């Protein structure tokens, strides 16, 4: 009896630990609190009354709604995961860097915020550098970039994650239909070097060993 009661409240033997900081799992989704997101939102809200954002992840209805309600912004969806997926399936990942140089139609210093999510974990080095160059180019003075960077490599294949904003402090991690790819670890100094011209405004290490990094362009 006592063992039954304890079992209800505790972890069963063999049960895996919940990933990251997830307090609750629903289906394939996990809720994870974010330290960088509220700071990013605050920075964007103070940056401009009608901010311009770029989301480098897949389009998520809830995120569109959230940004509409919270910021009344102009949001550009540039789904780089779809690009990666397409190149990975075609076996042309080496060409991704070349396409990134021409992909963004935004003018220099025209964007207030960029949501990178964890796209840099998957990109080959040349593509990551090309994307970072474009981000630095497009970001306005005072603008912010939010990115998630893994600390553990997944050399073969790791699935993509959809980051859905549940509220201003919480993200819902959802499975992505893409094929995923190898994850590379970028050291902090590599990140700083890559985003030459930006400064690391905040950096948080989550229990899941994910680094949430907020970069800013000096105003």
């Amino acid at each position, binding site marked *: 009896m006592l063992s039954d009661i304890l079992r209800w409240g505790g972890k069963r033997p063999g049960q895996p630990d919940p990933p990251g*900081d*997830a*307090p*609750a799992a*629903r289906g394939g989704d996990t*809720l*994870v*609190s974010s330290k960088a997101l509220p700071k990013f939102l605050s920075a964007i809200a103070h940056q401009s009354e*009608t901010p311009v954002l770029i989301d480098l992840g897949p*389009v*998520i*209805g*809830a995120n*569109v*709604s*959230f*940004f*509409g*309600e919270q910021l*009344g*912004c*102009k*949001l*550009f*969806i540039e*789904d780089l995961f779809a690009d990666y997926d397409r190149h990975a399936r075609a076996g042309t990942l080496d060409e991704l860097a070349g396409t990134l140089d021409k992909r963004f139609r935004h003018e220099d210093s025209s964007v207030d915020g960029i949501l990178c999510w964890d796209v840099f974990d998957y990109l080959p080095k040349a593509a990551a550098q090309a994307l970072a160059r474009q981000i630095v180019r497009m970001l306005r003075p005072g603008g912010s970039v939010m990115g998630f960077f893994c600390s553990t490599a997944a050399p073969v294949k790791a699935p993509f994650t959809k980051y*859905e904003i*549940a*509220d201003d*402090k*919480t993200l*819902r991690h*959802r499975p992505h239909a893409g094929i995923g790819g190898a994850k590379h670890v970028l050291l902090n100094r590599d990140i700083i070097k890559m985003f030459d011209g930006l400064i690391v405004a905040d950096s948080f290490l*989550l*229990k899941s060993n994910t680094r949430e990094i907020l970069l800013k362009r000096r105003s």
Partner: protein
Amino acid sequence: MWKRDDAAKPNAPAGQGPAPAQHSPAPLTAEPTSRPAPTGDTQRGQERTVVNIGKSVVIKGELNGSEDLTIEGQVEGKIELRQNVLTIGANARIKAQVFAKSVIILGEVTGNVSASEKVDIRDNGSVDGDIAAPRVAIAEGAHFRGSIDMQKGGAAKSDTKAPAATASTQSSSQQTPAAAGANR
């Protein structure tokens, strides 16, 4: 029986006084004139008539109107229904600039979509272009590539008002995180 009596009354008591005679002709005269009226009334009762453009129809050019419209065919050019709801059906293929009060997309749109109220991309709906609307809903499974302008004032360029930039979504993901506070 009752009708016969009433109808007979105007003729019979002609000299009795005008009061009853005035009551009875009124419905009689109203009936013939009201015959065309029901069609007008039904139109008013429906308030909005919905026009359909079928699967096999191909339109190239400008499409204007003041009725709600459902398109299942192909349109290339420009669609303008500034006071009405435009539904782009699952079979529709649109290559056009779209202006409407509200746009529901179940098919494919290539071009910019502007709505004074709401743009709703349903499951399997697809938009390649920029959206400008104060409210935008994108369902799970929908495809979208472009920008979404929900800026206050900027969204409703096609219409008069600039409503508050509230957005809604159909995706099942709008649940509030009950256990969010338990994190870390």
